[in-house]
């Protein structure tokens, strides 16, 4: 999901009818520049090299989204497919959670996240926590810093706690549910659920999280 305002201009995006690397090429109706769908960058035309801002979006199932966003509205149109359900994730090897900010680029394979559902990690300089919800194959990512202090998370008695204060956390919301930090919220960051192959192709420079060898 992208912001479609560039400078003062609001753009309207359409499907151009072209493909690049088997991926969609978008066109804006205002300048007819061509844009890579996966990169959010203009590749040709008046706006070439312009980068669109990526907005926080989460690919998850309806059950999880409505539980975490009770005030949500929904865009409804006639269905054009019916295959996109949780069953798509039967083979987790085909998917990654990816983050890219122009400077840093990192991905976590769903397969690794399945066996390591709570990772204290860094992205660039930023300490982050990646929490993976297996049932819905959803990666929830937050900056694990609160009032200037870095937190690290672990599972204790089937609860997620931070090791600094042992407060308990709900990682769907990034909110502390008990203990000293109760009510505190972590800042969410955008991770994109993507096909592994597409991520590799469009982010050849990407770093990959690797489990520690034991």
């Amino acid at each position, binding site marked *: *999901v992208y912001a479609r305002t560039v400078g003062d201009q609001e753009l309207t995006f359409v499907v151009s009818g*072209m493909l690049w690397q088997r991926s969609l090429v978008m066109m804006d109706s205002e300048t007819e520049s061509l844009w890579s769908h996966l990169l959010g960058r203009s590749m040709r035309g008046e706006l070439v090299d312009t980068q669109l801002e990526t907005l926080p979006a989460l690919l998850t199932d309806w059950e999880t989204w409505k539980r975490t966003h009770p005030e949500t509205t929904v865009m409804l149109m006639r269905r054009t497919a019916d295959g996109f359900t949780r069953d798509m994730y039967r083979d987790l090897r085909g998917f990654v959670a990816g983050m890219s900010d122009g400077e840093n680029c990192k991905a976590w394979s769903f397969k690794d996240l399945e066996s390591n559902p709570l990772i204290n990690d860094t992205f660039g300089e930023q300490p982050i926590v990646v929490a993976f919800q297996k049932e819905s194959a959803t990666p929830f990512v937050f900056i694990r810093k609160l009032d200037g202090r870095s937190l690290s998370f672990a599972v204790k008695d089937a609860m997620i706690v931070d090791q600094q204060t042992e407060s308990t956390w709900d990682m769907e919301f990034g909110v502390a549910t008990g203990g000293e930090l109760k009510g505190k919220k972590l800042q969410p960051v955008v991770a994109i659920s993507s096909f592994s192959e597409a991520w590799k192709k469009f982010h050849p*420079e990407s770093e990959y999280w690797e489990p520690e060898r034991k």
Partner: protein
Amino acid sequence: MNLFSIVIAVGIVSMLYSENLLAQQLPKFEPQTVIRKPFPAIVEPKHVTLKEADKVVHPKELVLGVEIEGDARAYPINMLTGPQREIINDKLGGQAIAATW
């Protein structure tokens, strides 16, 4: 080792090396036209409440969820599929957004 096998060996090594180099770079932008005419833009799509959507959207169906400035909206992936549906021009939380997957 004769000259012939050296030439082959050098050839293979340089091929591997250049492939390796290429792998670090984004491929050149060479779009292929699949359909001649761009599809019409989707603007101002219809929105409904959670309660209404619940009658139509299955709990296990995938959605693309977006939240801006406290405004949340879900886009069911099964309604974003197919060339005429890939990009939805919408507004959320006071921002113009392109919902696309």
